[in-house]
C-alpha cells in the first residue's frame, strides 16, 4: 500500500560486505524497505540474519572490514550512505538516534548521566549550559525517571538495568531525531521492565512523531509495537508486511516455521513445530533461495533461482510459491 506521505527512510538494494582473508562475505544482500514518518518497522530474524548489520549500516557505524558495497540509503530524500564521516556524525544523533541492547555499554561509566546527556544536547543544539541541563532534566522526566533533578547527577552504575535503558532512550531523544534505530532495546531486561520500556517507546514515538526501526528477535515485542514487520533470513528479506498479516497469515515458509516454533502460553502442544537445521553461515549460503535446504515446500526452481519479494496476500514474500499469485496482479 503506497503511503500518502513520502517515506522518511528509504533503503534501496542495500548490500553490506565483509572482506576477509577467506573471501568476501555478504552480510546484507539486496535489502530494500522504507519507513514512513512516525511508523514503527520491526526487523526480526535469528542471529546472523543481518538485521543488526542493516541498522548499523544505516547509521553509518559499520566497523571495518564491513562496508556498504551497493545500494543507497536516503533520509528524507537525501542520500546519507555516501557522506563523509564528519557529515554522518552530524546526522547521527541529530536526525537518527540509536538505542542499543546493553544499556551499560552505551553509557560512559566515568561520567554522570547528566554530563552525558548535556554533552549530547550541546553537540546538536545551540543551547547554553543551564538550558541544556533543564532540557536534560525534562528528558529524564519524560522517560519516567523518578526524582530526575537529583538522579541527573548520578553515575550509570547507580541506576538499575531498566532505568539505564531509560537514560539511553533519553540520550537518543536529545535532539528530537526523526528516526530512532533501536537494536534489541529490551532484550537485556526483565519482562516487567521490558513491558514498561515498550510502552515508553510507543508513547514517545506517538507524541514526537518519531519513526522507529526496531531490530529484535522477539516476536512478542514486535507484535506489541510495530506497524509493519520485515523478516530477515541469511542477509535477505524473506517477508515484509503489516504486523497482523505477517504474524497471523505468514506467506513465507520460513516465517511460518518461525511463528510456529514460538511457544505460546496455554497452547499445550506436546512438541513445538521445529524448523530442521540452522541458518547457513555467510560463507555457505545455498544457491537459489537461501532457505531451500530447510524448506518443507522447496521445489526445483527454489534451488536454482533466487526469488525476489512477490506480493502474497497482504504481505510480500520472497518465495516462488507465490509466483503465480504475484504475476496475476
Amino acid at each position, binding site marked *: 500500500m503506497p503511503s500518502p506521505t513520502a517515506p522518511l527512510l528509504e533503503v534501496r538494494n542495500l548490500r553490506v560486505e565483509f572482506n576477509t582473508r577467506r573471501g568476501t562475505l555478504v552480510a546484507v544482500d539486496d535489502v530494500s524497505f522504507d519507513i514512513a514518518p512516525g511508523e514503527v518497522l520491526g526487523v526480526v530474524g*535469528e542471529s546472523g540474519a543481518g538485521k543488526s548489520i542493516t541498522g548499523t549500516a544505516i547509521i553509518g557505524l559499520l566497523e571495518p572490514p564491513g562496508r556498504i558495497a551497493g545500494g543507497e540509503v536516503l533520509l528524507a530524500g537525501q542520500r546519507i550512505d555516501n557522506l563523509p564521516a564528519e557529515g554522518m556524525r552530524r546526522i547521527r544523533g541529530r536526525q537518527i538516534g540509536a538505542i542499543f541492547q546493553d544499556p551499560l555499554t552505551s553509557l560512559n561509566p566515568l561520567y554522570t548521566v547528566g554530563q552525558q546527556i548535556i554533552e549530547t544536547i550541546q553537540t546538536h543544539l545551540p543551547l547554553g549550559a543551564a538550558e541544556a541541563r533543564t532540557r536534560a532534566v525534562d528528558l529524564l522526566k519524560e522517560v519516567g525517571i523518578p526524582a530526575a533533578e537529583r538522579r541527573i547527577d548520578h553515575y550509570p552504575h547507580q541506576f538499575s538495568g531498566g532505568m539505564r535503558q531509560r537514560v539511553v532512550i533519553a540520550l537518543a531523544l536529545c535532539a528530537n531525531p526523526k528516526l530512532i534505530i533501536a537494536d534489541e532495546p529490551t532484550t537485556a531486561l526483565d519482562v516487567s521492565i521490558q513491558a514498561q520500556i515498550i510502552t515508553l517507546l510507543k508513547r514517545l514515538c506517538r507524541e514526537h512523531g518519531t519513526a522507529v526501526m526496531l531490530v529484535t528477535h522477539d516476536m512478542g515485542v514486535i507484535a506489541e509495537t510495530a506497524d509493519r514487520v520485515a523478516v530477515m533470513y541469511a542477509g535477505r528479506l524473506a517477508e515484509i508486511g503489516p504486523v497482523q498479516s505477517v504474524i497471523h497469515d505468514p506467506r513465507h515458509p520460513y516465517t511460518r516455521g518461525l511463528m510456529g516454533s*514460538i511457544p*505460546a*502460553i496455554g497452547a499445550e502442544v506436546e512438541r513445538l513445530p*521445529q524448523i530442521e537445521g540452522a541458518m547457513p553461515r555467510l560463507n555457505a549460503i545455498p544457491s537459489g533461495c537461501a532457505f531451500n535446504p530447510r524448506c518443507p515446500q522447496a521445489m526445483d526452481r527454489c534451488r536454482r533461482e533466487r526469488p525476489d519479494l512477490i506480493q502474497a496476500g497482504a504481505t510480500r514474500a520472497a518465495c516462488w510459491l507465490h509466483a503465480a499469485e504475484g504475476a496475476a496482479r
Partner: protein
Amino acid sequence: MSALPEEKPIAPENLLEVRDLARTFDVSRPWLNRVLEGAPRQTLKAVDGVSFSIARGETLALVGESGCGKSTIARLICGLYAPTRGEVIFDGHDMAKVRSRADMLAFRRRFQMIFQDPYASLNPRWRVGKIIAEPLRQHGLAQTEDEMRARVASLLEDVRLSAQDAEKFPHEFSGGQRQRISIARALSSKPEFLVCDEPTSALDVSVQAQILNLMKDLQREHGLTYLFISHNLAVVSHIANRVGVMYLGRLVEIAPTRTLFTRPLHPYTQMLASAIPDITMSGKARTPVAGEVPNPLDPPSGCAFHPRCPHANERCKAERPEPLPFDGAEVACHAVHERRIPLHAI
C-alpha cells in the same frame, strides 16, 4: 567407603525435596572501609526459606526476574554453594550431611547441570569427544578407550549429532549444537536429575524449539527429572508439569502448569502473566506494571511485593505471608487467603 548419610524420610514419589532452603551472601564493603567509614556489614538474602519437592520423572520450573534467587537455588541443589539454612534431600539423603569425597562423587554422578551460555560452558581447547568423555573419566564409567569412544558416539547420537562430531572443536558448532553438546556431557554420567539453568535463553527461537523438543524426548527416553530455571513464561508453560514463581528470594506461588497459567493467584504472577509480550494478543491493553524489583539488600517489610501490589494493606506491610495451600496451588499472599482479591480478577 564411609556409610551413606542418614536417611531422611521423603515421600517415595519424590526424587528431590528442598526444605526451608536459604542462602545469604556477605556483600559488605572491604574491612578497611568498614573501619574507616563505619560502613555496616551487609548481607544479601539471595534465597530465603524456600521449600518444594520434585517427583520422579517430573519437570518443575522456577520462574522469576533477575535477582529473584532462581539460579542460586540451582547452584544450592547442585552443591556449588553451601546452604546457609535448610536442607536439600536427594533420594532420601540430606546432601549437607554427605561428608566423604567418594560419597559426594557418587551423588554427583546422579545429578548434572546444564548452563545458559553454550559458548562459555565448553572448553574451547578441548575436542567435543574429550568434553563429553570427561564425566565418564571422572566417575570411572568407562574402562577402556574403546568403550569411552563408543559411549561418546552414542551420546552424540542421543542428542541428534553425529559420531564424527567428537573430533571437532566447540567453535565449529552453532549455539544450538553447542547446547546439544552440553546436554550430551550432562547425560554421559547417566544422571537421574538435570538442573537446567536457562538452557534456551541464549538461543534463537527456532533453535530453542529444537532444544525443547530434544529435552522432552530425552526425558521420556531416559526417565529424567528436570528442574528447569527460566525467565520465559511461555517456554516454562511448554515444558513444565509444575511451576514455581519466585520473587526476591521467596517462592510466592507454586502450582500445576495449567492451573498457574489459567488462574494465576498471586498478584505478582498475575502481573508477570500480563507483562509478557504475546504474539496472539497483539494490540491488547496492558495492565500497567508499576515499579521495579526492590533492592534485595533492603527488601520491603512483610510481603516483599507489597510496594508494587494493588491489593496490599497494613497486614501485607507488617507480616510476611507463608506459602499455604489454596485450591490446588500453594500461594504466599494474605490477600488471596483472605479472599480480598475479587474472584473475577483471578
